[in-house]
């Protein structure tokens, strides 16, 4: 039951990411590199954040407002990281386009760009799951388990795996939405993404209340579902638009 449980927790938090990786990312080397770069970016942002917060930790007070400040600064910083990631990608895209033009006589198609965005988002999501959940799972491979007081229905590892899965979904697909919004200059989506991120983070604050995880986790998944829906709508809209137009790769090129 021990190793099986540990593997189960890992698969809960990383299973969907793994299947995305195998089915989409692993076939294309460039996407793997994007994934790694995005993971590194996320890690650096987290290290900078933790460096900034190092002096105030651990949060001893039982009150919830330090956590609110922590979450707001963190989410704000991570959204800034996303913007930097986008700016860097934008520069890279020019090189990629030139390269593709030379090699294949065509520029990057919109599906290529979507895949790059997906890889970038998956990098954020996987890094989140890895650092917040999987790296703490080592004890769960042992013979015991661990419960936190405020969420005593389930083992701590299970709750954190489920939460990190939710965040994996949110991070991955909000990156797709965000990249698309940046490329097309859609202001609404650009604003929605940070709001969703903050909302999702605030949902985890509910876990601070005794028994709050029974409410917070479903709410988190509702947000994840909204992100998925929105992403699907956006892709569907693009698909139908492209279907109406002739599939001309130079025509498709947006930006």
């Amino acid at each position, binding site marked *: 039951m021990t190793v099986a449980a540990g593997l189960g927790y890992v698969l809960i938090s990383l299973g969907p990411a793994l299947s995305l990786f195998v089915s989409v990312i692993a076939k294309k*080397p*460039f996407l793997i590199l994007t994934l790694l770069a995005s993971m590194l970016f996320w890690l650096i942002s987290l290290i900078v954040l933790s460096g900034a917060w190092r002096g105030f930790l651990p949060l001893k007070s039982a009150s919830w407002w330090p956590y609110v400040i922590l979450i707001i600064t963190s989410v704000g910083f991570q959204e800034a990281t996303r913007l930097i990631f986008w700016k860097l990608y934008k520069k890279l895209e020019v090189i990629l386009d030139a390269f593709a033009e030379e090699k294949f006589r065509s520029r990057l198609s919109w599906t290529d760009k979507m895949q790059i965005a997906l890889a970038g988002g998956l990098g954020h999501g996987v890094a989140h799951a890895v650092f917040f959940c999987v790296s703490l799972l080592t004890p769960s491979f042992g013979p015991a388990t661990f419960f936190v007081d405020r969420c005593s229905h389930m083992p701590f590892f299970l709750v954190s795996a489920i939460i990190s899965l939710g965040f994996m979904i949110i991070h991955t697909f909000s990156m797709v939405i965000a990249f698309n919004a940046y490329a097309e200059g859609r202001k609404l989506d650009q604003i929605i993404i940070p709001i969703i991120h903050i909302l999702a983070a605030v949902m985890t604050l509910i876990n601070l209340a005794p028994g709050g995880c029974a409410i917070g986790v479903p709410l988190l998944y509702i947000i994840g579902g909204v992100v998925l829906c929105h992403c699907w709508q956006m892709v569907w809209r693009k698909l139908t638009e492209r279907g109406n137009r002739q599939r001309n790769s130079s025509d498709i090129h947006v930006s």
Partner: protein
Amino acid sequence: MERSVLDSLGVEIIGVMSPVSICMLLVVLLVSTLSPSASDSAAAAASATTAATLVYDESPSDPPGRRLAGALLNAAAFVALIAAATTLLVVLYYYRFTGFLRNYVRFSAFFVLASMGGSILLSLLRAADFPLDAFSALVLLLNLSAVGVPAVLSPAVPVLLRQAYLVALAVIVAAWFARLPEWTTWTLLLALALYDLAAVLCPRGPLRVLVELASSRDEELPALVYESRPASASVSHVVAALGSVELQPVEPAPPNPTLSNRNVDPDRTILEIESLEEETSPLVPNEPSSSGSGDSRQQDIAAEGEREREGERNQDPSSSSSLPGPAFENDSFDTSRGIRLGLGDFVFYSVLVGRAAMYDLMTVYACYLAIISGLGCTLILLSICRHALPALPISITLGMGFYFLTRLLLEPFVVGASTSLVMF
């Protein structure tokens, strides 16, 4: 769906990164399964005899100042040994003792697989409580090692098998090195990174001399070198991975950390592959072919590659024949030249990750990301300056930096946040 640029860009980089990742993963698994047993007296005694602890045997009870001085001495002694060994091998190679070098490599591969691999196998069996009688264990081990000897050298062995054996060698040596005491490990890694930098980049650095010597002779460089060439690419590249020259004299030592790069002459039917390491993906297209190594022929080749990149379609028959079936139609993706990475780089990357694995999984992930990104940076640099580059310095520096940052800053933050189930 039509082929896009995403399909082919970065194949070479992934071709190097995936074996490095596999190697690190195996070492982490080994270290984390064996670490309880490594604390018993036998393992401690074994670790005390390695060359890296010649001068000073670190014990956790010593004061920090003494440990630091001792660790520095250890690292200096070890690097001095490596430098002496490398110089000896360069001298041997210079006077064309190639047969001796080959046999030496065969012996050391066998030795590493049989003795060090055997001891790791033994502790694995012990950890898994797997009942295996001594006789069959011995037969198994000797057979495995015996296959390894031709696999490292002979052209008749499938590429995949050779790559597997090279990775296995690296894993074994790295698992051995991961038993070193902590401070010694860190100073050793830093010292090796510095040594690597000097040996490859200095005008008279031994590794650089070796690479240039090999290239001027049109011979394969005698070293244990991982090659990311695809398996379908002809016999030609099998000549690689000759001998683990530099480091071998240090008995428990791994092959030397080298990462060097040269162009392969496309005119040869038997492609020369003495280059340890090669990067052809033009991540930065149309860069000036700055030839760092003073070989004029190499400049010509680099210029030729440049012309090819400009879109000439008539490819040299020999280089196209060594392309794998579904290869890229464009010349700039000439996969007949793979990227080479010295096995020593594998070893020391894995040592770093293995050391990180003794602390926590979080440091492992951070170090892995840092090392891989350092490797990526090195490969990108390689595509710009097109000559032998040391693979250790960037990766090791990044890896160590991320290790301590993670340990000191990230861990309390993340653990504090996620144990109260607050995430973002």
